[in-house]
């Protein structure tokens, strides 16, 4: 598909380094966890998960996101998508645990709302972590959909520490479905805890790798050792597929050279 043209209708500052960009186009068929390729014309095209059916939430981390932050309401973007496999939606009455770190809250907030709107109020529990209180993303959206545990690295809000500290304290096996998105180091720690509890097979992880084609052809985002494509076979993977893989250990950049996660 060619990129379709969307116009930015509204921008909201979510944190000092994170903004939500709303478009004049809603992707109603998108499943939480799917992503779109966002073309900042003349600069680059980058993958972003949808944080609403008509918005992306972006952290300023590099050239492309910096260019995106320069745009104003009324400016346009090219969008391809939704692409890839989203989260496996829970069955009715299943207990759901969400573990979000930083801007990793972006695909989990719409999932929380989906579950809350289709199931019972009390079924979603969220562990939301960030470096500091002003980096917490979508705390209110999670609060509105169920129970929330907040952690900050510096203790400025909620519990001082990491999402894994909360995870270590709760009864993991109480939850039927676990979903996580955040920095890979965080997800790798979550994976370790779930694996130890033999709960990794009920967990799904939203992964990030450098995408080139984004349509499952070029192989740039393949993971070791099974050659799974993050863009097409993911970006959401069941924990079972991540056992003894590169996940949490290394990732390849644009040239294919391995680097730290």
């Amino acid at each position, binding site marked *: 598909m060619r990129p379709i043209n969307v116009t930015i209708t509204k921008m909201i500052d979510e944190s000092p380094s994170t903004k939500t960009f709303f478009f004049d186009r809603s992707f109603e068929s998108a499943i939480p966890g799917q992503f779109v390729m966002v073309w900042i014309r003349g600069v680059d095209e980058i993958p972003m998960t949808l944080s609403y059916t008509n918005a992306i939430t972006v952290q300023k981390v590099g050239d492309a996101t910096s260019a995106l932050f320069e745009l104003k309401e009324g400016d346009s973007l090219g969008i391809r998508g939704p692409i890839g496999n989203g989260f496996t939606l829970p069955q009715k009455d299943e207990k759901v645990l969400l573990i979000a770190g930083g801007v990793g809250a972006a695909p989990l907030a719409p999932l929380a709302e989906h579950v809350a709107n289709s199931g019972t109020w009390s079924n979603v529990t969220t562990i939301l972590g960030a470096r500091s209180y002003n980096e917490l993303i979508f705390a209110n959206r999670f609060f509105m959909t169920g129970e929330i545990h907040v952690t900050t690295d510096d203790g400025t809000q909620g519990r001082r520490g990491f999402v894994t500290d909360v995870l270590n304290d709760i009864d993991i096996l109480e939850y039927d479905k676990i979903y996580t998105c955040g920095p890979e180091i965080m997800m790798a720690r979550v994976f370790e805890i779930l694996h130890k509890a033999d709960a990794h097979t009920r967990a799904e992880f939203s992964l990030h790798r450098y995408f080139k084609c*984004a349509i499952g052809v070029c192989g740039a985002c393949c993971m070791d050792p099974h050659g799974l494509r993050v863009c097409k076979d993911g970006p959401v993977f069941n924990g079972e597929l991540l056992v003894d893989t590169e996940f949490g250990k290394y990732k390849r950049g644009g040239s294919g050279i391995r680097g730290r996660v």
Partner: protein
Amino acid sequence: MVTLTGLKLKNPTILAAGIMGTTGASLVRMAKKGVGAVVTKSIGPEPKEGHHNPSMVQLECGFLNAMGLPNPSYKAFLQELEFAKKETSVPVIASIFGGDADDFLKVADGLSPAKPDAFELNVSCPHAQGYGAMIGSDPYVVEEITRAVCDSVDVPVWVKLTPNVTDIASIGEAAERGGADAVVAINTVRAMAIDIATGYPILGNRFGGLSGEAIKPIAVKCVYDLYAALDIPIIGVGGVSKWQDAIEMMMAGASAVQVGSAVFDGIGVFGSIADGIDNYLDKNGHVTIEDIIGLAHEVI
């Protein structure tokens, strides 16, 4: 079983360069999916990030791409190639590129410890300054590079040709004179797409190469012309997505086919093409694919 430049392939379908070929693991995954042989991503002397995205888009008639030869360099790719060689028994062909014969030699020598089953020389990428088709449209340069690599390595050498020339047969002849064991035709066709909402060229590199369905008739003609001009085998590539395409390519003169963009439809495409070729041969009373290679030249 097919024998191609001395290599034994369980079927005549080959994973094309630049497709699922950046890592050893993805090559192994494809090998398990019924591929006769796999070709790696094109590897060069230095790490390259490639062009900015968008680097590949699906168009109405095919796929447009300008990756920009991203690769980790032969030094970092060695471990990927070793993994692929260790984990699969299908032939693994190393695609290599460079700016001149010395570059090609450096990369070929650098990858040789991993024992690739053959080398494919990329003198045909249509959108990388100073590489690929920039050198592949000059028959003297193609001959020189081919000869240099052939003299240096002890495995078969395939040369992948660009269709973006006036006379592809003269480039094929240059490769043959240089000692190539086979030619591969064709690389992508120079192309461009423009976003009509804004006028921006869609690809980060502005222009690139077209693959997929739209270029199959171009590939068939190139293979047909090469078959008439050369004695070495021709590997047909360009728009092959089903067994009928493979048969057509073989009738034009291809001894085997490579498949690239069709991986978009599913990575199981190779097995279904190979099965379709077998069924076709059975139904039509042919014993081997040799019976149909170049048939279009004989019937008239």
